[in-house]
């Protein structure tokens, strides 16, 4: 049987339709702030219409495993595209950089994939409406736990193939079902995710009310909660979290770290099983990696790897600022959030290389973080050790174990293949970005090109140099931006579900 692409298109239409529902939130914000209602009103109208139109491709969609793969790939592309409509409408006739369709697509895809790379010029509430900036944050929040997971949670008709769908979307090598019903699992994940977001917003606004954070008003508190939990990285402030007090920075650090943890584990904690939580191998490795990197970066900052900075201040020979900036930058970059409190683009080479190295780690499976992921590194290290052992003892039979449980060889193959593709695409990405920049005469350093490619495929956001945390990707040529859009898309869905759609055998019987 051939792939029934109409089915996938129709369900994509449903996803698009519900995106319009999400747009009601910025509409309400516009109402509250007395801003132009037309932008989101028209957006909702357009998106709703498009969704209903697409739904008509197949009145009775019946998803098989291959249709599910196609749907996930299509749906993410579709929300990326319809997410541009508010940017385009708001920017129409103004000097906004987002009026250009490529820029709008870059910003929209960067949002939904929780990358956090921006091409928005002059990020502030003076230049853009609160509603538009909140939409930018909201795209990250929707993409964080996954729009498909959300759809499975709310749409009973998707629950039948929910396992296939979630497997294709969720980060990590293996699907973890928490409850017998996949729909219930999806709901649990979103509930935990929602709870953490709410908690962070309350904490941040609480700091404001307590007088520790003068600039963290309600809008900022919600906006940053929307960006922290999905490991996004967008901020309605042009100088990211550096705009806020040290108390806010400290408060955000643990939430960023939590965002890189498998959310399924919190479900066990809620069920009263803390042992499962603390014994989880991936969690312990993740925590260990974070701690180790923080220690190294703290040492570097203390020793003076960063000069006195306009954004970030002096860290040489200080304890609290050095520790805070080390913990924040690592907490942000290791699991692909992309916030910054210090302009690390101006750090010394050693500091930048350490951060680049940390970016390769990624979050945990089942978290909102991007990258290769801790569990894959664990498996890869064990596979390497096994291969070395087998060189000496060719007859040995050694299953790979994670916390005493045997990992299926098929899953191991998947992990190795994914990691190779990830590194391959990352390498190709560096080359494309560097050559494309050279084509238009844009001078790009090696670290900038490497950073840009990794930031896109790992859904991290900021790179180095001009593409650093307080810079912008605006200067890159349109072709590079489109290439990065592709990398973000394929990186968010963990490569294989997207790549398979481009193979001939996927379409043949």
């Amino acid at each position, binding site marked *: 049987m051939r792939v029934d692409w109409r089915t996938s298109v129709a369900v994509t239409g449903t996803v698009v339709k519900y995106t319009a529902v999400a747009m009601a939130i910025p509409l309400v914000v516009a109402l509250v702030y007395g801003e132009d209602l037309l932008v989101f009103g028209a957006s909702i109208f357009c998106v709703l219409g498009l969704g209903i139109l697409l739904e008509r491709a197949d009145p009775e969609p019946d998803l098989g495993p291959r249709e599910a793969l196609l749907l996930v790939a299509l749906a993410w592309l579709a929300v990326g595209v319809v997410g541009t409509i508010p940017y385009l409408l708001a920017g129409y006739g103004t000097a906004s950089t987002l009026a250009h369709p490529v820029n709008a697509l870059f910003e929209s895809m960067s949002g939904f994939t929780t990358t956090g790379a921006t091409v928005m010029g002059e990020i502030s509430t003076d230049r853009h409406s609160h509603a538009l900036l909140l939409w930018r944050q909201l795209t990250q929040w929707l993409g964080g736990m996954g729009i498909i997971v959300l759809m499975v949670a709310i749409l009973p008709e998707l629950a039948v193939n929910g396992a296939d769908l979630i497997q294709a979307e969720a980060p990590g090598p293996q699907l973890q079902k928490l409850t017998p019903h996949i729909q219930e699992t999806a709901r649990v994940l979103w509930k935990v995710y929602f709870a953490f977001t709410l908690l962070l917003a309350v904490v941040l606004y609480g700091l404001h009310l307590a007088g520790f954070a003068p600039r963290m008003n309600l809008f900022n508190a919600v906006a940053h909660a929307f960006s922290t939990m999905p490991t996004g990285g967008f901020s309605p402030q042009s100088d990211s979290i550096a705009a806020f007090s040290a108390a806010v920075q400290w408060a955000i650090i643990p939430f960023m770290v939590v965002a890189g943890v498998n959310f399924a584990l919190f479900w066990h904690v809620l069920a009263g099983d803390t042992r499962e939580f603390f014994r989880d191998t991936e969690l312990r490795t993740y925590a260990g990696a974070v701690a180790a990197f923080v220690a190294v970066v703290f040492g570097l900052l203390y020793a003076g790897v960063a000069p006195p900075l306009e954004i970030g201040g002096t860290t040489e020979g200080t304890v609290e600022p050095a520790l805070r900036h080390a913990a924040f930058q690592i907490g942000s970059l290791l699991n692909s959030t992309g916030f910054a409190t210090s302009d690390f683009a101006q750090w010394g080479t050693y500091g930048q290389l350490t951060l680049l190295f940390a970016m390769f780690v990624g979050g945990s499976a089942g978290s909102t973080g991007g990258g290769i992921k801790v569990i894959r590194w664990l498996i890869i290290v064990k596979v390497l050790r096994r291969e070395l052992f087998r060189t000496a003892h060719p007859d*040995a039979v050694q299953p790979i174990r994670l916390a005493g449980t045997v990992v299926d060889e098929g899953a191991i193959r998947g992990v190795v293949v994914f990691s190779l593709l990830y590194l391959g695409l990352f390498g190709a990405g560096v080359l494309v970005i560097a050559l494309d920049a050279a084509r238009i005469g844009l001078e790009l350093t090696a670290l900038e090109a490497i950073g840009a490619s990794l930031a896109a495929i790992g859904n991290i956001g900021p790179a180095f140099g001009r593409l650093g945390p307080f810079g912008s990707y605006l200067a890159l040529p349109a072709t590079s931006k489109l290439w990065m859009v592709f990398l973000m898309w394929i990186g968010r869905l963990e490569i294989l579900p997207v790549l398979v759609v481009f193979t001939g055998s996927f379409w043949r019987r």
Partner: protein
Amino acid sequence: MSPSTVRPRWVADGRAWISVVVETTPQIPSRGTASRYGGHNPFTLPPRTPAYETRGGRSVHVVIIGAGQVGESIAADLQHDHDVVVVENRADRADELTYALDVLTITGDGTDLDTLEEADIGEADMVLATTDDDETNIVACSTAKAITPSAFTIARIKNTKYLRTWEHDEGAFGIDLMVCTNLLTAESIVRVVGLPAARDVDVFAGGRVQMAEFEIGDGSPIVDQTVEEADRFDSLTFAAILRDGDVEVPRGDSCLLAGDRVVVIGSPHSVQTFARTIAPEESPDESAEVVVIGGSEIGYHVCRLLEKRGLSPRLVEQDHERARTLAEQLPETLVMESDATDMGFLEREHVGDADILVSTLDSDEKNLLECLLARRLGVERTVAVIDRTSYVDLFETVGVDVGVSPREVVAEEITRFTQSGSAENVAFIESDRAEVLEVEISADSALAGKTIRDAMADLPECVVIGAITRNRELIVPRGDTEIRAGDHVVVFVETPVVDEVTALL
């Protein structure tokens, strides 16, 4: 007591029926066997005394299903004192047994109601299912239990999954005792591995007392010493010296010669120390390198039990799928996929450096070959699983250090169970030349209240009191130690006087 056999604690007339009365366990009222025999429990008398008269002319009726090597061996042990009926589905085999043993044989299916009724199952006191098929044994026992609820059913099982079910809910399948061949064999092997110099090891008094048989090698430090000189170990008793097929009860001036075998009884620690002293080069510890050849159920259990002792054995299995399964089930074991007779493999993996090699392949010949190969490569000690009981002696002569026969292990376990009267635990030495018994001293025993010196005067010459446990603590028997009621005494007895001794105890 090995964990693979959990014994029911049935007690009648205040005495153990067939059971280990665990020292502190309160005695549980009987399930009614006593009343069936007019208040006389048929099992309360020492089993080897002709007991027909005292039972009102009715003897113990035993039905054995399956006349394989295990069934035959048990039938042979029980034939004289019990009415034994053997059910066997192969007519020629049944015929063979009719002439070989003093038992009644019936040809037919042991799970078939008519056949069982023909075997007079309604009158059976005990039913033993010992065919080679687990499911047949279980069904046969269930059927027997359904017809005769009072019959005591014993099933021989190979697969441990049934054992686990049974242990989970004792009495499941209508089986009163489940004996797992593979597990028992593995336990037996692991005991031998744990004491490398030992040829045989048995445990008593819930593990507080060990009996072990050692061969004294040429280079052993105790060669040419007298027993008095050699006996420098706390809580260890020399029970016997086996020389040229004779059993000799050691005296202080008995001289130990190279090639002798000694039976010692004592605490596990002292037995271990003794093993290390007489054979220092074979001293076992956790770094001992054990190679297990063949990933059969026995091989699997050997590795599992060794893992429990903190060892990391190597296991060689030829079949790809099986090797993978084993590797998944045994986290501490290094599984290798290879033909174990491949010299290239054995040399590449330096199998010759191993301290112990256990061969659990599916054929006796392969196991022999494997052990001989290993010997040649320099393995210090080889253990082979030998299916055919009659090969054990032969293989041990040719060069296998220890041969373990699963059938013998099981037959021994079942016989031990069926024969024990007040004797709780029995080990056989030198294929029945002598026995080591564990007995609880009752208040009316002839020994109660006497010192060992006085008691020895009452007992025949060829008896040695090896160890006493009182309130679950080991007491080293010395001449002035007083024996009290309730003590558990481990005694070494030569077979000819066993009946006389058990009557006295």
